[in-house]
């Protein structure tokens, strides 16, 4: 097994068999999503114009790839449906999805923060946006206490304004500057 991310051992033991059944529903959804996207992309690719210079146009290779993907997804989806039925059906799976989300609440919160951060990066500028991101993310993970607030402010300052200065002054690499503030 070459997954680069073995989960902590305790959680793993609890998870194994039961989680497998629950995750199967989510996986089925992913097969369907990937399969349909593949069909759409294959269709788009086949609309690409042929080339005057070569036997294979721009569309041939992507078309081949996406058709293979669609077939693989179809195959996986069928297998998955059989598995879910064998393991006791839907209601269990829906309940499990709630738990699945709960375990990952901070992960998704951080991701949401990352999205907001990237969105405001070119308006606020690297330093300010990064400072905000780091501060909130650190407190989100560690929880708010006097100690963590002080630590987080310091770390956030160093890695936002400090990093930007390092890159701009030493390396001459200019990270996105804000519209409002020229840092």
């Amino acid at each position: 097994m070459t997954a680069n991310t073995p989960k902590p051992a305790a959680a793993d033991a609890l998870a194994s068999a039961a989680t497998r059944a629950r995750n199967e529903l989510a996986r089925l959804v992913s097969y369907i999503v990937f399969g349909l996207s593949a069909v759409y992309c294959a269709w788009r690719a086949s609309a690409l114009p042929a080339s005057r210079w070569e036997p294979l146009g721009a569309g041939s290779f992507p078309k081949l790839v996406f058709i293979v993907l669609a077939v693989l997804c179809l195959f996986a989806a069928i297998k998955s449906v059989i598995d879910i039925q064998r393991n006791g059906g839907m209601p269990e799976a829906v309940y499990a999805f709630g738990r699945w989300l709960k375990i990952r609440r901070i992960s998704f919160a951080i991701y949401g923060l990352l999205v907001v951060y990237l969105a405001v990066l070119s308006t606020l500028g690297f330093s300010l946006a990064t400072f905000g991101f780091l501060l909130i993310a650190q407190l989100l993970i560690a929880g708010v206490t006097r100690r963590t607030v002080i630590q987080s402010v310091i770390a956030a300052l160093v890695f936002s304004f400090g990093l930007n200065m390092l890159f701009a002054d030493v390396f001459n690499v200019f990270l996105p500057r804000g519209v409002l503030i020229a840092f």
Partner: protein
Amino acid sequence: MLDAFFQGAHQVFAFDTLLYMLIGSVAGIVAAAIPGFTVTMAIILTLPLTFAMEPLQGISVMLAVYVGGYTGGLISAALLGIPGTPSSVATTFDAFPMARNGEPGRALSLGVWASFFGTIISTLVLIVAAPPLAIVAVRLGPWEYFSLIVFALTIVASLVGNSLIRGLIAGVIGLGLATIGPDPMMGRPRLTFDMDLLSPGLPFLVVLIGIFAISQLLGEVEVHGKKVNHALIPKSIDFKTWEVMREVLGRPVNLIRSSMVGVVIGALPGAGGSIANLLAYDQAKRSSKTPEKFGQGIADGVVASEAGNSATAGGGLIPLISLGIPGSAVDAILMASLMVHGVSVGPRLILDHADLVYGMFIALTVASFMMLVVCVASMRLFLRVTDIPKQFIVPTVMICCVIGAFALNNRVGDLYLLGIIGLVGYILKCLDYPLAPLVLGVILGPIAETNLRRALMSDGDWTVFLTRPISALFLAAAVLSVIFSIRSIWKAHKKDNGQKGAVV
């Protein structure tokens, strides 16, 4: 000849050259150790400085950055589970589990020694066999490249983890993602859905960071049961320098095989370190007596990947030194810096500038020793990373990823892509899709397509793929590889059924 050798040695062993090289080595290691920052980035930052140096001095410094960079990627691979550079993807497979099992020092040490020996072996091959190897490499046409990539794609079977079908789907998604953007022949937009964001395509580095780093970091803050804020790795352990050196040398077959894979892949212009580590890992796994232990923290996995990627340093110089053909982006920058100094890099380099070529051999060797010394001396410092609590590591590394993704092409659009790909990567990870095949697909897809189309433009006849001997050889190897994989999956399945447990 001896004269030129001493002249080269004299220049490399000058005090200021050695000092600059040392700084370069540290810079390369640090840059590569930070996820998102790459060797290429470090080299570009070094380039303007070398304009002011003597040619050999400039090249030596760049080689020091280069060698350091091929090792540095190991540090974040082992300690964070995130490949620090594209060439350390396979290092995460075993070095990270090993670190999580309480042996971070051993994991780093194994990687450093394997890198060191990999570089040395590749330098030896470079010195002894560069011209003939380069001639073979340059003769390879699009047919051979396509067949080689077909063979390389079959190693997906070694990377699939729990589920063959999800591994295949991930690999094909990778191939598909790589088709977005300008088509490799005509440069016309393809599958971009008229979005500015997609028009330059998905840069490989952005996919790599998004898929591995963002997903891994988000995974770190999942709350299983009680909320925990401790460090990522349980405890910091000794580096065990000499003991591990013996351990690495005790695997001569793996070491030499992986290094040769690195040399050969490195010598092929356009392939490079990002494939070599995966191929070397695959070969090590296949010839192992205990393939099921790969991925759980086996020393052979770390050695194969690190020896494989470091050996591409010497391998990449083979076509550069003997023919003046750069094997990778980094080699192209090396060549440009020589050209600016009036050194014409071409098939006559070794005749016209023998001192320079010998100097490069010496510099490469010196650089690998420097890397070793720097790593051994500073490993304790790096291991301190394991003491830093999550709340600092996770957001800060994310910022580094953002900077790395931006600094690559200075495009803000790439950052939005990073966000999207990061989410996709995290979801795929949660659903137990293996991620390595996806990255492999993104690397190999464009090479396969370009060469397939180029081959058919050169000659419309499909049978040429079979009539050119080297191409036919690669295709045969691909077929054998598939047969071998099917057989071993079937075997594992049979064993598994005995103990119950479905392999989906």
